[in-house]
């Protein structure tokens, strides 16, 4: 189950999209989320669709992998469609089949809204599939940098994010280990009535908390010993580099926006 999930998972590949600066990707996603609401007829939705699939194609993420990972979400998209079909009662009546009545407006809205939903999912997965979490963190840190003026703890937030990312695999291993140790002591995690299962989680959660606190404490000491004293006066090792491709991508998005304005009804 977990192995098929693609949200938040990075898939390494050598593509134009992978090589883009995380800042430009973040900006593009942000703008995309805004301009998608400009689409309101078949032509504009088709434009958005072409753009989305063009970007996906450039990322070289295998289609089969995408399909496998997005399957559970597709159900959600379908559900949106069905909801719109049944509950919008405007326009001409298209189908009347017992209690089920489908109106023209319902069909139109249903298709548009579920398409919008679908494109949003594709584009945001594209960001996480082609950008390592740490790159996203770096991008966010730079983009949010101006907020430092209003005392927003940008550096601390970015550091927190990168340390969490660093420790996720460690904690997964730890969880597995403690789970096995408790199973060996007779705990059954996967069976029994609901109440029993909740109770079974305690012997897992408490050791995890205890060890995480211990880790945090030791990590803090190690960081201090290595001269960490907050964001001030710090230089940065990781560097983001803006290339021509990033600028071109932004131009492309700008063109899409203009077209959407011209073609929307």
């Amino acid at each position: 189950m977990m192995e098929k999930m693609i949200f938040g998972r990075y898939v390494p590949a050598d593509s134009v999209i992978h090589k883009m600066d995380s800042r430009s990707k973040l900006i593009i996603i942000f703008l995309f989320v805004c301009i998608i609401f400009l689409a309101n007829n078949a032509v504009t939705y088709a434009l958005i669709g072409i753009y989305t699939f063009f970007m996906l194609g450039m990322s070289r993420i295998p289609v089969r992998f995408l399909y496998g990972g997005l399957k559970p979400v597709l159900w959600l998209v379908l559900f949106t469609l069905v909801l719109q079909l049944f509950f919008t009662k405007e326009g001409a009546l298209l189908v009347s089949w017992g209690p089920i009545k489908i109106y023209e407006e319902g069909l139109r809205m249903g298709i548009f809204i579920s398409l919008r939903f679908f494109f949003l999912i594709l584009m945001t997965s594209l960001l996480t599939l082609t950008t390592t979490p740490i790159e996203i963190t770096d991008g966010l840190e730079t983009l949010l940098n101006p907020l430092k003026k209003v005392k927003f703890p940008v550096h601390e937030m970015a550091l927190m994010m990168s340390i969490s990312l660093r420790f996720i695999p460690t904690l997964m291993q730890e969880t597995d280990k403690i789970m096995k140790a408790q199973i060996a002591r007779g705990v059954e995690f996967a069976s029994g009535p609901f109440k029993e299962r909740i109770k079974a989680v305690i012997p897992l959660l408490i050791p995890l908390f205890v060890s995480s606190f211990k880790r945090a404490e030791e990590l803090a000491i190690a960081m201090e010993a290595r001269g960490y004293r907050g964001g001030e006066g710090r230089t940065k090792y990781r560097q983001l580099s803006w290339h021509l491709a990033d600028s071109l991508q932004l131009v492309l998005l700008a063109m899409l926006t203009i077209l959407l304005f011209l073609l929307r009804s």
Partner: protein
Amino acid sequence: MDISLQHIDYRYQANTPFERLAIEDVSIDIPSGTYMAIIGHTGSGKSTVLQHLNALLQPSKGIVKIGDREIKAQQKNKNLKHVRQKVGIVFQFPEHQLFEETVERDIIFGPLNFGVSEPVAKQRARQALKQVGLAEEILEKSPFDLSGGQMRRVAIAGVLAMEPDVIVLDEPTAGLDPRGRKEIMDMFYTLHKERNLSTILVTHSMEDAARYADQIVIMQQGKVVNQGTPEEIFSSPVELVKMGLDVPEVVRFQLKLEEKTGMKLGKIHLSIEELSAAVTEALSRGVRS
């Protein structure tokens, strides 16, 4: 209780791009009452083997026999509680599994899960605590207020209180100081003898393997590469060195001595006492001849 692994394979994350064969065609027999050491580098597959010993992992291929229970690949295995009660595992850094409010509650956690009544479990807790060398006063304390060494002992007591027939130890002394290490190892050995347990020790320490084990299994890259008594295993030390494994200090010393002086001691000696006697004997013979 006899345990036997018959031609087992284990694959992690089977049927995904991340699939990895962790152990391959591993066969090990552990007759009741054996003290067996499993030796190998980190990543040699010894931890994967260990988890088969009480069905924490199900083999991808082959059969695991634990007492009269058979665990086969591609088969639903239910009701494993009985197996898990009979085979206790002390994981590496077992203190990480402590979670209860008091030492007593933590020790009786295992026995209660296996259906032992509370008074009996408490009785066992007292006994187990004595075995690991802790005073009864700490029963009411929180395990998190204890020192690292004491926490380790409490966790071990929690496994002993299950009264298993087989005890599996995964590097039980990692991170302890020399005194703590010796006390814990001696304790397990005494228990092994007194209760006629089967003991399986997964370790890096050749010294411990040479001192305590009747049988040694050497693992490398997921396979069993050698198996035998300590005398057999250490009589071909060159092979061990080739695998990048250590030889017990006594053996290493004997080899060095034989190489440098041309002295021939015949067999491999596994204790300082034996070796010094043999060398002294050889030296005095040398003078006489």
